[in-house]
């Protein structure tokens, strides 16, 4: 790579697949005949694959490629596949191709490499057949895995009954070959694997050997409890060693330590190593190529206040290359990197993209239905089970079917073109595609219909794969009959389909950001830097939110200085309009066209905006525990931080200080982990030790949840002789005033140390409580006003935990920061950029398309009962006064077409277009009357 931000030249080597991708249909006939078998890397080399094969079942592109193990490539022998392929897609003459690309920015998302447990030989991996890694186990569980989803042992291909998971393999260790950081995902993925194992085999006995359980993310605590409560599941707090392999059974013994009964040795049928996350395999080469720096762990060096920025301008990084990362963060850091690219390249936005142009739509509403049926083989997925030619024949016998044919892959580019060509040629006005679930490919086929010049809603999909061939793979004849039934039903429905219009709505280019903390300000700046007007609304008189109470981060950021910088940027930015001491009175409208009334310092104004970002933050719980509020020596973590920043004399001179973790959360009332407190306490402890190295500091914890790089600070604090004492929730610490040595008043903290087997009595001058992070009052208010959802704990609920982590279900509204869940500043900033990036996918367009499949009210039938209004989660239905009284009316732009209201309406006045009674009943009739 050469050049600089805005103008990079990158040379790529495109490796040959030896397949002409445009010709390959993915039929896999070649795979069947290929004589070379080799261990399949996608299945962790547990099973074999052929030298020519499709990378994995849902690969994109879904074409074959030829691996280095190919006989022809090695010795110019064989070449069977060339003869087999009807489309002449095999091309052994392909050579590696050099491609030069000029771009303005680069996002590095090379991901991670699982830790290799073979490195330290300490768990018998590669030595004992029945020791596997967690990634091996993922493949074992998976329906497309080596044993088609049967969890089988390598030694005897039998189901293991007793399975053990060993946590922290390769993580949280400073021994050679290990990683000092916590990988952050293994606790929860192991729990997932236990749950799924129990679904495979309810009788399975599952044991997780662990140290701390780190359920620090949203809904993880409940997930942990759910796992723990399953019958036959044990969590045992001990790191372990492998004892031996039993020669006859190939079972493996595990030795673990108990505080009371010493070391025990137990036999397991299968051992799963919860391996941690390493940087991508070729990280040094990657860093050299792109001229970026790496951190000590080999991950990309990033800037704590610009966490997607690599050390070279114009290069951004997202996903696990930034450090151990779970899926939601991989996704939102991607959106965030996107937003950063947008800031850099805003001047050229839209210059290289092209709008699609479709042929004019033919009005066929008055024509007799002429239905075309396309039956997909889906390679072998359908074709091997369902008799496709017979099904095509059958389709032709159905009323109104004017044309039918089979296709190998209906979704392939050439097949889609064939559909639009045939539709035009045969004068079809309805299309039924018998293939897979509409969930994935309906948008593609609707597009195909538009290409053919007919309304895109004249499409129906019969799902003969997920609903049929995949679940009835052993009943071929019945499966063929069911495919025909499904097609008959689709044809019946297709007859009644109506053309629907989607409409383009103009997009107001401005954004509203609710909440003027770091999240809100960062998002506002990112939007404004991409040319969008931003209205930033803050309820307090000063911007800054929670950050105003923070002074440092573990990474060494001076938070107050940073805050001053950001606030300065906000006030200086010509496109950002700040409203402080502000309250939102009401809000309405829909995606691209919102209107919100804001009252600020006595003035009320209406803001029109296309997108809304909610960054309403969180608050610190006010404890009722441990004498808080009764004894001034008991403070919260934030209060302690204030006192440290202010060099409070009594604090700095304290001889002994006790911190108590999990105050006000991880309990019945607040069943979640506040995520930041363990590291926050460590930060305070390290700062205190810096001020007064003689101070005895004790941290009383349940699980230390210093995930990711924070683990290094945990060890650092231990090295500074901060003493960590684990307590059980059933036996919490006690705090009481007492008279200590020298007759001085102290707070006596008593806590049971499970390893010591003793009650420890510590005389403390100060007790600091790691008080929970709780949802802010502002968030609750915002949830009500903007009709967005919260989770049971009161934090905003995203549209999809993993795949849409900063979107709300309602279009055009985004979230970021602590309102989503407690998080650190760096995480908040990533998420803020992400929310801005997501908002840009809306605001950068002049129009937004609303679906045609929405509800409408037949006013004559409506009795104005309001049942539909209360059923609607989007606020899409309102009353309108008419001469006949109150009538419900649907705002089609807000309606999501979920049809809930249809079911509630007592008179059948409200209906959902594209899913009308007539359409559905005709389908049901066809099902029962062949």
């Amino acid at each position, binding site marked *: 790579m050469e050049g600089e931000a805005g103008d990079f030249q990158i040379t790529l080597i495109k490796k040959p697949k030896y397949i002409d991708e445009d010709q390959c249909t993915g039929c896999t006939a070649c795979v069947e005949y290929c004589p070379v078998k080799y261990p399949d890397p996608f299945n962790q080399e547990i099973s074999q694959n052929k030298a020519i094969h499709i990378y994995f079942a849902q690969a994109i592109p879904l074409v074959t490629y030829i691996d280095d193990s190919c006989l022809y490539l090695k010795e110019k022998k064989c070449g069977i596949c060339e003869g087999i392929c009807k489309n002449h897609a095999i091309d052994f003459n392909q050579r590696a191709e050099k491609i030069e690309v000029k771009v303005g920015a680069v996002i590095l998302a090379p991901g991670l490499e699982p830790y290799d447990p073979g490195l330290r030989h300490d768990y018998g991996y590669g030595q004992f057949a029945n020791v596997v890694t967690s990634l091996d186990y993922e493949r074992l569980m998976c329906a497309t895995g080596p044993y088609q989803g049967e969890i089988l042992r390598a030694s005897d291909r039998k189901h293991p009954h007793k399975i053990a998971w060993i946590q922290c393999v390769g993580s949280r260790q400073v021994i050679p070959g290990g990683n000092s950081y916590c990988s952050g995902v293994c606790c929860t993925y192991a729990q997932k694997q236990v749950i799924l194992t129990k679904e495979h085999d309810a009788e399975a006995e599952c044991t997780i050997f662990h140290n701390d359980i780190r359920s620090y993310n949203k809904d993880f605590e409940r997930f942990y409890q759910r796992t723990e409560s399953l019958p036959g599941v044990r969590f045992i707090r001990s790191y372990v060693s492998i004892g031996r392999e039993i020669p006859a059974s190939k079972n493996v013994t595990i030795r673990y330590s108990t505080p009371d009964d010493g070391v025990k040795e137990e036999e397991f049928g299968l051992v799963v190593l919860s391996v941690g996350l390493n940087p991508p395999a070729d990280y040094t080469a990657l860093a050299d190529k792109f001229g970026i720096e790496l951190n000590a762990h080999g991950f990309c060096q990033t800037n704590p206040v610009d966490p997607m920025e690599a050390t070279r301008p114009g290069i951004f990084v997202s996903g696990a290359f930034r450090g151990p990362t779970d899926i939601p963060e991989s996704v939102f850091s991607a959106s965030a990197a996107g937003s950063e690219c947008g800031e850099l390249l805003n001047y050229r936005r839209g210059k290289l993209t092209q709008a699609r142009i479709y042929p004019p739509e033919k009005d066929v509403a008055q024509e007799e239905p002429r239905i075309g049926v396309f039956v997909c083989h889906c390679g072998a997925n359908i074709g091997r089970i369902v008799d496709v030619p017979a099904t095509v024949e059958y389709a032709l016998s159905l009323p109104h079917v004017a044309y039918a044919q089979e296709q190998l892959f209906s979704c392939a580019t050439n097949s889609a073109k064939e559909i639009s060509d045939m539709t035009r040629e045969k004068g079809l006005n309805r299309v039924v595609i018998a293939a897979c679930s509409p969930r994935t490919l309906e948008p593609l086929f609707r597009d195909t219909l538009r290409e053919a010049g007919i309304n895109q809603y004249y499409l129906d999909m019969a799902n003969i794969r997920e609903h049929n061939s995949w679940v009835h793979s052993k009943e071929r004849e019945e499966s063929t009959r069911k495919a025909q039934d499904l097609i008959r039903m689709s044809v019946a429905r297709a007859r009644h389909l109506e053309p629907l219009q989607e409409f383009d709505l103009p997009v107001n280019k401005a954004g509203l950001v609710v909440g003027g903390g770091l999240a809100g300000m960062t998002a506002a700046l990112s939007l404004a830097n991409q040319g969008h007007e931003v209205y930033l609304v803050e309820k307090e008189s000063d911007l800054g939110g929670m950050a105003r109470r923070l002074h440092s981060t573990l990474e060494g950021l001076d938070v107050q200085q940073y805050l001053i910088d950001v606030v300065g940027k906000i006030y200086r930015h010509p496109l950002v309009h700040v409203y402080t001491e502000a309250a939102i009175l009401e809000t309405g409208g829909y995606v691209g066209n919102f209107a919100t009334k804001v009252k600020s310092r006595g003035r009320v104004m209406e803001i029109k905006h296309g997108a809304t970002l909610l960054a309403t933050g969180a608050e610190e719980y006010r404890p009722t525990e441990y004498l808080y509020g009764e004894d001034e020596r008991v403070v919260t973590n934030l209060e302690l931080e204030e006192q440290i920043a202010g060099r409070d004399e009594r604090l700095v001179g304290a001889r002994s200080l006790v911190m108590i973790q999990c105050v006000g959360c991880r309990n019945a009332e607040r069943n979640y982990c506040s995520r930041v407190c363990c590291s926050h306490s460590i930060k305070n402890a390290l700062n205190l030790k810096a001020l007064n190295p003689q101070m*005895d500091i004790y941290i009383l914890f349940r699980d230390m949840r210093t995930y990711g790089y924070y683990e290094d600070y945990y060890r650092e604090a231990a090295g500074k002789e901060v003493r960590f004492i684990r307590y059980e929730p059933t036996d919490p610490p006690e705090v009481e005033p007492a008279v200590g040595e020298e007759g001085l008043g102290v707070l006596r903290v008593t806590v049971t140390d499970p*390893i010591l087997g*003793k009650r420890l009595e510590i005389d403390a001058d100060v007790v600091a409580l790691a008080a929970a992070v709780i949802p802010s009052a502002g968030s609750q208010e915002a949830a009500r006003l903007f009709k967005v959802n919260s989770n049971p704990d009161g934090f905003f609920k995203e549209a999809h935990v993993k795949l849409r982590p900063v979107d709300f279900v309602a279009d055009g509204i985004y979230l970021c920061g602590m309102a989503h869940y407690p998080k650190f500043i760096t995480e908040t900033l990533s998420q803020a950029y992400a929310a801005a990036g997501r908002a840009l996918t809306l605001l950068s367009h002049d129009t937004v398309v609303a679906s045609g499949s929405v509800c409408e009210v037949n006013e004559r039938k409506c009795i104005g009962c309001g049942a539909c209004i209360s059923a609607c989660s989007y606020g899409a239905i309102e009353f309108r006064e008419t001469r006949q009284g109150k009538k419900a009316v649907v705002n089609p732009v807000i309606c999501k077409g979920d049809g809930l209201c249809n079911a509630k309406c007592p008179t059948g006045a409200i209906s959902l277009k594209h899913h009308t009674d007539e359409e559905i009943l005709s389908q049901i009739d066809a099902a029962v009357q062949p």
Partner: protein
Amino acid sequence: METAAPFKEAIDELRENGAEAFKFCYQCGKCDTVCPWNRVRNFSMRKLIRETTFGLIEIEREELWRCTTCGRCPQECPRDVKQIDNIIALRRFAAGYGVFPGPVKPIRTVSGNLTADGNPFGEERAKRADWAKDLSVKTFEEGMEILYFPGCYLSYDARLKKVAAATVKILNKAGVNFGILGAKENCCGESIRKTGNESLFKRLARENIKTWIDHGVQKILVSSPHCYHTFKNEYPKEFKVNFEVVHISQYLYELMNEGRLRINKDYAKKVTYHDPCYLGRHNGIYDEPRALLNKIPGLQLDELPESREKSFCCGGGGGRIWIETPKSERFANLRLEQALAIGAEELVTACPYCITNFEDSRVVLGHDDLIQVKDITEVLQEVV
């Protein structure tokens, strides 16, 4: 449940005695799971470390004296707690108060013997070279190729004198110009140091170093991995001296590769090799002894189930060689059973403590006729 307050003075005293890394412990329990003690009885290193953390040590308990310093737990410890340093600090602490519980009492006698005679047995210093009487071994002189330092066990112990003899025989075959220091040789001090007697260790070491300097010693050949460890790692660290140290297994391998030593006989036996803790784990010497054995025609070398980095301790390190261990708690018994289980006719090793313990187990378990215990030199002397 007992209530106790952290005992600051004790923590400070332990720190002065060298306990430091205990503070890193996060109580994962890994040390306990690899500790050989937990194969024969309960023993928790984790708990000892935890007691150190709060200064809540009961110094009269035998627990302080169990650790054989085999090195298994520090090698696996994810937090690098350096258990051995902590254990030595605890022993210094207890020894400082003169507390030696019953089975540990012999340590006192051993210390006395070392002080008086330079060996743990109380044998006369003058008789230190008696083993070599009939072997025409030269006294070391400046300019010789190498100093042979047999150590206390090979000098005095009846069984181990055979190993010294075998060594001499091989060295002569190879034409090595070597000598010994005889009565001027002192115990290396490695094991007594592990019992917390730092001053005695230093005294022994100083005397050895002085003798070596006086005699112009540059390169030292040792038979005991314990001597090897302390000469190679501890002397340089404490006294900034830098003698070249080589263990007999390394040296023989060297001689073999240089062509100075040739194997000319078959050795048709099934043997297995036990890695001594101080040769393997503490110093990373795993390959040379195996390479030597594998060069011998006819010899079938089978690995023990716990070998190399995972080698199972014989129980003799850390001063335990002098401490009474009940029969049911001797690690060597388990190790011998392991060797028998893989069908070995000979258990070969390269450490006098290991040989002492295994020979003892052979008798105690009544396996005299089933398996032989040999030093690697004893095998080699028969084939060169």
